[in-house]
């Protein structure tokens, strides 16, 4: 089974060979490295840019204005902050020009904790990103969705911010991308660049079948009746794990992978919360003005009379950064244990 890194590569291979993408670019994105997380290895349309994030986003906007379909990468979302006004422009150009200039472009960037990244390789960006109207924001948590969402992002006529969780980049998926070789060793030998003699290497891409994930559709990963848990990215698999463990103790928990934040799947969420009457939102962005707070507000408005317990958000603590020492990082963003405790408490809280 593919990893997220491999899924990105395979989606971009399709994008450059079948979907009209002519430019995949960013810092160290082209040969020889193919991206610091190897997500762009083996591609033919990938190229290295100057170390200039504003230049990268500006290039993408300019290409999109000229009707191209650029895919740009910001190496770590920790370094996307100086481009925020360009992201604003990417988001508002269609509106300001009264529809004349929709910008078809994808910006990829890895987010979050989980690699001992300390202060500047651990940031989340989704809450800020969702504050930029006109962008679409997606954030998959597994390779299959990564593939399907990236294909949809490339095809979308609007600017899409494609975030992906660093902590899970190398984790193998549990579901096959249709057509991929089942043996991970085979896939690796075909599409992972060798450490040495890269110059003469070229990948042997598997023939994948069509697979797309519609932007705006969440995925229901576990069905349950007594609690709805909504998450995405690094914390999502932890929520699934916690729900499975609590099931053995008799708790029936529904787990939703939101996958896309703008637009997000309101109907799936409301249906679930109206059924279970309890809701926990889990993510690792800092808790103040967190995207989860928006979800809570909307859930309150649409599901208030169905709620049996106060709806809850479990998020990252509101500190200026993530500390390097594991004792710090573990205490700053939700971990399996804290997630499980919150779930259990909510399930056991009497209505």
């Amino acid at each position: 089974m593919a990893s997220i890194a491999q899924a990105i590569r395979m989606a971009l291979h399709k994008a450059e060979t079948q979907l009209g993408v002519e430019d995949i670019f960013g810092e160290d994105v082209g040969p020889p490295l193919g991206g610091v997380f190897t997500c762009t290895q083996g591609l033919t349309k990938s190229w290295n840019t100057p170390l200039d994030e504003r230049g990268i986003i500006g290039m993408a906007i300019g290409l999109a204005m000229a009707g191209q379909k650029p895919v740009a990468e910001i190496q770590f979302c920790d370094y996307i902050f100086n481009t925020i006004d360009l992201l604003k422009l990417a988001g508002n150009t269609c509106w300001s020009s009264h529809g004349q200039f929709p910008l078809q472009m994808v910006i990829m960037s890895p987010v979050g904790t989980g690699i001992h990244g300390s202060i500047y390789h651990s940031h989340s960006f989704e809450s800020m990103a969702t504050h930029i109207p006109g962008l679409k924001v997606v954030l998959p948590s597994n390779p299959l969705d990564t593939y399907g969402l990236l294909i949809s992002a490339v095809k979308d006529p609007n600017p899409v911010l494609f975030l992906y969780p660093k902590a899970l980049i190398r984790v193998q998926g549990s579901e096959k991308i249709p057509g991929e070789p089942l043996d991970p060793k085979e896939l690796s030998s075909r599409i992972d660049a060798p450490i040495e003699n890269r110059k003469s290497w070229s990948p042997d891409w598997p023939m994948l079948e069509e697979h797309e994930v519609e932007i705006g559709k969440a995925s229901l990963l576990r069905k349950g009746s007594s609690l709805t848990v909504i998450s995405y990215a690094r914390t999502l698999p932890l929520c699934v794990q916690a729900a499975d463990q609590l099931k053995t103790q008799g708790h029936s928990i529904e787990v939703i992978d939101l996958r896309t934040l703008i637009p997000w799947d309101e109907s799936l969420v409301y249906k679930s919360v109206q059924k279970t009457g309890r809701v926990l939102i889990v993510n690792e962005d800092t808790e103040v003005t967190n995207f989860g707070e928006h979800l809570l507000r909307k859930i309150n408005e649409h599901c208030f009379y169905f709620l049996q317990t106060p709806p809850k958000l479990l998020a990252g603590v509101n500190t200026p950064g993530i500390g390097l020492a594991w004792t710090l990082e573990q205490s700053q963003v939700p971990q399996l244990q804290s997630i499980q405790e919150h779930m259990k408490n909510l399930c056991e809280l009497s209505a």
Partner: protein
Amino acid sequence: MGLTKIDLEKIYRLMIKARVLETRLIKMSKSDDGYFWIGGPGEEAFNVPLGLLIQKGEGLDYDYCHFHYRASACLLAMGSPMIDSIRQMANRSSDPFSGGRNFVSHYAIKEWNIMPVTSPIEVQYVMAPGTAWAQKKHNANGITIVTGGDAGTAEGDFASCLQWSSRPNMELPILIIVTNNHYGISTPFDQVHGDSVIAKRAESFGIKWSTVNGNDPIASYKKLEEAMNYVRSEKKPFCLEAYVSRLHGHSSSSGGNRVENEIDCIEEFEGILIKEQILSEKDCVELKETYEKEALDALKQVREEPFPLADTVFQHIYKETK
């Protein structure tokens, strides 16, 4: 000098037209007809030749224009009617650039490759390499033109433009223009800049550069033609700095009144044309009156046009799918 009498007369006519338009827009900002004004009175001698030399059209084979908000004379020279600027000033739904959403001089014309003019200073300089790269890749006939003010060149985006335009073996067909009026809003250029010739910065990137007296339409035309021919034929960047006047201050926020002690390119050019007997004083007065009438008639018409409906704010957030 390469330009015929007819050319000179045409340039003069467009300069007058642009000045009359701006004067009308300023009046509107001081009345109930509009709010904020910003524009280009004082830059006509440079902007009219620029507009005339642009290969206008849609797509890679035509020139992409990433303009500053003082480009009204370019737009008129390209054939944009006065009334459209008046519509934007009056924020009517008929404003073809933004549907009543944006300030005046914030043009956007898809069919002419006029990229949306933005309020954030200097961002056009990081976007322009994108259209230029698309043209380079496709070996297209068009070039990319970007314009902006002097103060804004302190932003990193200006350096980014030079950097991205001059990558080895990937030099871009881009004309990088700075219209230097010697001020930001109120801050004089030399109070906060250690360098004196902005275009010279291009030299360290291996980019050809030059300066021109932007108050002289003939010199501007020649220099622009040379620079554009170079960019078109060599498919390489060129940086041109034009020294221009700012005749009504920064914008309506500083009053929008006519200032003293700045050269007026129209007065100067008019003097030459009269002396050379290309036009008479009477011709000049009549021309001005004709355009004044056109602008006033346009305003009267625009006053009758509707404002955008409130619920249209939700249109065009994303590309509309029919």
